[in-house]
C-alpha cells in the first residue's frame, strides 16, 4: 500500500533528511515510525502527501508511482489520504462540524450526505455532542480527536499521523492510539510517526526506526519489529 524504494530526500542546504530509505507497508497494516527529533519522520510523511518530492528513489502509494502524479493531480491524491497533525491544524473560526465537513465539501458531497458522514465520524471519536462547539472551547485531546474525525471522514484508504500524541498526557495518548487501531481494524492502512517509544512499544505493531535519515530497523514486514 505504501512502498519506498531507496528514497533519498536532500534539502537545499545539502542536508540529507532521508537516505536510501526502502520499506513496504501492506494494506490493513498499522505501522509506527519512530526516531529522534530530526531523524526524518515528518519528511517521510510529507513525501507520501506530495508536500515534497524525493531527490532520488520511488514512492509508490496504492500501486501508483508518485513521480507520475502531476501538480494538478495532487489534490485528488491527497483526498485519498487522511492526515492527523501534532498541532491539529483546525480552523478556529469554524465549528467542529464545519471543520470535519471540510474534506467532504472539497470532495463535492451533497449536504445531506455530508451531515450523515460528519456525524458518523464525530460519533466514532466520541465528540458527537460537541458538533456545534468551537474548537477553542475543547480540550487538547478533544481537539486532536476532531482532527482525527476530519482525517477519516472522507473514508481514506490510508491514514497518516505526525506526532498525534505529542502534546497529550499518557492516558489520553493511549486513548488516541486505540482510535487509530479501531480504524485500522476496518481496513485502513495506518502510519503513525511518534517518538514516544514507551507508548508505541506496548502496542505490538511493526515499528520503523529512522536514525539520521536512515532506516535502521523494521523495514522487512511484520514480525521483524525491534
Amino acid at each position, binding site marked *: 500500500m505504501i512502498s519506498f524504494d531507496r528514497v533519498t530526500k536532500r534539502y537545499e542546504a545539502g542536508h540529507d533528511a532521508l537516505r536510501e530509505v526502502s520499506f513496504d507497508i501492506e494494506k490493513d497494516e498499522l505501522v509506527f515510525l519512530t526516531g529522534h527529533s530530526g531523524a526524518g519522520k515528518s519528511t517521510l510523511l510529507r513525501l507520501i502527501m506530495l508536500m515534497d518530492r524525493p531527490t532520488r528513489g520511488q514512492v509508490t502509494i496504492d500501486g501508483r508511482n508518485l513521480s507520475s502524479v502531476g501538480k494538478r493531480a495532487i489534490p485528488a491524491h*491527497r483526498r*485519498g489520504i487522511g492526515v492527523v497533525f501534532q498541532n491539529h491544524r483546525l480552523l478556529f473560526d469554524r465549528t467542529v462540524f464545519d471543520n470535519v465537513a471540510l474534506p467532504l465539501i472539497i470532495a463535492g458531497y451533497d449536504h445531506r450526505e455530508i451531515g450523515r458522514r460528519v456525524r458518523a465520524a464525530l460519533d466514532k471519536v466520541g465528540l458527537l455532542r460537541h458538533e456545534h462547539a468551537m474548537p477553542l472551547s475543547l480540550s487538547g485531546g478533544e481537539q486532536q480527536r476532531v482532527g482525527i474525525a476530519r482525517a477519516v471522514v472522507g473514508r481514506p484508504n490510508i491514514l497518516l499521523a505526525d506526532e498525534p500524541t505529542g502534546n497529550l498526557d499518557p492516558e489520553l495518548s493511549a486513548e488516541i492510539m486505540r482510535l487509530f487501531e479501531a480504524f485500522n481494524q476496518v481496513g485502513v492502512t495506518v502510519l503513525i510517526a511518534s517518538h514516544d517509544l514507551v507508548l508505541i512499544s506496548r502496542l505490538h505493531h511493526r515499528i520503523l526506526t529512522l536514525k539520521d535519515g536512515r532506516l535502521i530497523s523494521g523495514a522487512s514486514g511484520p514480525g521483524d519489529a525491534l
Partner: protein
Amino acid sequence: MTGSADKATRRGGASLSRADLRDRYKAWLQHHRLCAADSLAKVLEAPVASLLTWLVIGIALALPVGLNVALENVQRLSEGWDSPAQMSVFLQQDVSVEQGDRMREEFSARADVDKVIFLSRDAALAEFSRLSGFADVVASLESNPLPDVLLVTPASALSEVGISTLREEMATREGVAEVVLDMAWLKRLQHLMTLGQRFVLAVGVMLILGVVLILGNTIRLAIESRREEIVVVKLVGGSSAFARRPFLYTGLWYGVGGGLAAGLLVSAALWYLDEPVRVLAGLYESSFSLLGLGLMGVLNLVILGGVLGLAGAWLAVARHLVRIEPR
C-alpha cells in the same frame, strides 16, 4: 480483518467514482453559493473597513464617470448648434423694404433653405433697445445704424459643404452686404470637448487601474489573514480553484459595493447640481436640464465594479495564493 464489502465502499468513497457528473455539478454550484454567502458575511462582519473600501472604489469610479456625464450634458447642449441654426444675411443700406421682401421669397424658394425671416432695420432697432436696456441711447440716435437682416435657416440635413455653398451664393447676391455664420466658437468648443473626452478617458484608465490595485491589495490582506485556512484546504485535498473561490467572491463583493457607491455618489452630485442648472437654463430661455445616470447607468457601474473586483482578486490570487503551500 473485515469483510470485503466494507472495503469496497471505502475505496469508492476515496476515489469518488460513484459521485456522478450531475452530483458533482450540484456540489460545485452549492460551493459557489456557499462561498458567495460566506464571503459576503465576512465583508459585512467588518462594516467600517468594508465601507471605507467601497467608498475609495466608489470615489475612484465616480470621478471619471461624473466627468463623463458632465461632458455628455455639454455635448447635448451644444448639439442644437451643431449645424448653424441660422445665418444672418445683412442687406446693404440702400436696399428697400420691397427688394428685401423679394430677396426673402427668392431665398426661401431654395431647396437648401428651410425658412427665411425678414427682420427690418426698424424692428431690429426696437428689439435691440428693448433687450439691451439702452432704450435712451437708442432714442437719442439720429438715424438707425442697423441694416435690414434676413434670418436664414438652412435645411436641416444640409452638410458643411452645402452650408458654405449656400453662404457663398447668398453673399454674392446683389444687395447683400454680408453673411454672418459664426461657427468658430462652436468649432473651438468641439475641440475642447474632444480634448475633454480624452482627458476623461486617461483619468478613467488610471483610476480604474488604481481600483484594481486597491482591490488586489485588499484581497492580498484577506489571503494573508486566512493563510492557515488555505494551507488546511490544500492539505485535505482542495484544488487551487477551490482555495481561490472565496477570495474571488470577496473581490466581487468589494467591487459591486464600490460600483454601487460610485452610482450613488454621481447621482447625488447630479441631484445637487440639477436645481442651479435649471435656474441657469431658465435665464437663457432654455428648457435644458441635466441628464442623470439613470438606472442603467448605475447598473453598469455596479457591473463594472464587479468586473474590476474580480480582476483585482485574480491578480492577488495569482500572485499570492499559489505561494501558500503546506509546509
